[in-house]
C-alpha cells in the first residue's frame, strides 16, 4: 500500500480517538539512514512547526515563547506515523487530544477568558 505524503498526509486534518479535531499535520519527519530508504517516523502538529514553515527564525522565536509556559513546552509535538489510521476525510490518532499539549492554548483560553464570561 502506497502513501502520498504531500497529498494524503501533510496539511491534512487530524482527529483524535473521540473524533475531536486535533489540528492539521504541520510537518512530517523522515529519519535518514545510511544505505537504507528514509523512514517516515513522525507527524508534527502545532504552531511551532507551523511558524517554522513560514520562516525558520519565526519558528525559533515562537518556540522560545512557548517554552516560557512550562516544562515540556517549546518543542514541537510529534506522533509516530504508526499510530495513525488513514480514514477519509481525516487522519485519526489513537490518543485523546485533551491529554496532549496540542490543546494547551485552547485550555488556557478556556480557563482564563471564556469561563469568566457569564453564560459560557
Amino acid at each position: 500500500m502506497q502513501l502520498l505524503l504531500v497529498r494524503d498526509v501533510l496539511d491534512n486534518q487530524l482527529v483524535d480517538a473521540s473524533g475531536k479535531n486535533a489540528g492539521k499535520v504541520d510537518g512530517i519527519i523522515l529519519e535518514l539512514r545510511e544505505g537504507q530508504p528514509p523512514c517516515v517516523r513522525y507527524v508534527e502538529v502545532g504552531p511551532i512547526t507551523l511558524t517554522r514553515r513560514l520562516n525558520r527564525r519565526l519558528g525559533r522565536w515562537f518556540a522560545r515563547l512557548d517554552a516560557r509556559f512550562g516544562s515540556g513546552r517549546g518543542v514541537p509535538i510529534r506522533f509516530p506515523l504508526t499510530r495513525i489510521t488513514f480514514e477519509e476525510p481525516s487522519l485519526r490518532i489513537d490518543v485523546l487530544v485533551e491529554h496532549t499539549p496540542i490543546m494547551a492554548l485552547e485550555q488556557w483560553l478556556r480557563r482564563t477568558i471564556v469561563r469568566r464570561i457569564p453564560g459560557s
Partner: protein
Amino acid sequence: MKRWFGVALGIVTSIGGFLEIGSITTAAQAGADYRYQLAWSIVLGTICIALLIEMSGRFAAVSKHTIADAMRERFGLHFFMVPLVLVFFVSLLVLAAEIGGVAVSIELVTGIHYPLWALPAALLAWALLWYGTFSIIENGISLLGLVTVSFAVAAVHLGPDWHALASGLAPSLPSKEPAHYWFIAVSVLGASVSPYLFYFYSSGAIEEKWDVTHLGPNRVIAAIGMGFGGFLSVAVLVVAALVFAPRGIKVEEYTQLPLLLSAPWGRVGFGLFAGSLFITCLGATAEIALALAYKIAQGFGWNWGEDLGPSDDARFSLTYTLILLVSMLLVLVGIDPLKLTTLSMALTAASLPVAILPFLILMNDSKYLGEHTNGWLGNLAILVISVLSGIVAVVSIPLEIIGGS
C-alpha cells in the same frame, strides 16, 4: 416532507439574507447615477453567487470537507495563506461597513451620531454568536430580513418604466462618465459575490451534516433563494432610479438612503428602511465574523462550530470576538460608513480571482467530489466573471479615486 420544509426555509433565508449595506448602497448608487442601465451587473452578480453557493454546498455535502479545510489540504500552507490573508483583510473592511450599517440604522431612529453605536452594534452581534446557535442566526435573522421585500413593493408602487428596465438587464456601454460606470459595476459585483459567503455556506452545510441527498435541495435553494435575493437588489436599483435620479441626487451621504422608502411612504417608509438596514446588517455582521473565524479555525485544524458552546471551541470563539472588536474600531473612529462600503465592495471585486480560482480547482478535483465535479459551463462562467471583475476593478478603482468621487 421535512426535506421540503428545509428547502423552503433555505430559500426564504437566502432571500432575507441577501441584502445588506453593500448591495443596498451599490444598487442605490447605480440607480441614482445611471437609472436602469446597470441592472445587468446585479443580474451577473446574482448568477455568479448562485453558482458559487451551489458549488459550495455540493462540495461540503459530497467531500465532507469545508472549503477552507480542503484548501489547506490540497494546496499546502503557503498557497493557503495567500487567499486567507487577502480575503481576511478585505472582509474585515466589509465587516466594518456592516457594523457601520447597524450603527447608522440606530442613528436614523435615535438621532444620536453613529460612532457611538459601534460598540453596542458589535456587542449585539457578538452576543448572537456567543449565546446563539447556527439555526437561530441563520433562520431567525434571515426571516426577519424579509422586511426587505418592502423594496420590491416600493418599486412596483412607484411605477417603473418596464421597457427601460428590460433594456437595462442586458449589458451596455456607459451613457456618461465611463470610469465611474465601471467602478459602480464592479462594486455591485463585489457586493453580490462576496467570498465570505461561500466559506460560510460550506461551513453551514457541514454544521447541518449535509450529504449527497442534499444535492437537489441545495440546487433549488441556490437558484431560487439567490435569484429572489438578486431580484430585491434590482428593486433597490429601480427605487433609486425613480427617487434619486429625477431629483439629480447622487448617493454620497448615508443620510440620503432612507429616502428610498420615505419618498413613497413617508414616516412608515423611513421606519421600514431603518428596520431593514438594522436587520440585514446585523445578520451580515454575524455571518462575516463567523465566516472569517471558520476560515482560520478550519485552516489550522481547530475545533470549531457555532453549535458548540464557546467552552468547547475557545480559540474559534475568541477569534470571532477579536475580529468583531477590530472591525468595530474602524467605525468607532468615525470612518464614513458609505465610503467604507463603496471601497470594500470594489476591493472585494478586485480580490475575486485570488479568492475564487483555488476554489474552482477544488470543484474539479474528483478526489473530493467523485462524480460530482463541475461541468465545463460552470467553470467557464466563474472563470470569466471572476477574472474580468478582477481586471476591471484593478483598473477602475484608481480612476475613481483620482476622479474624486
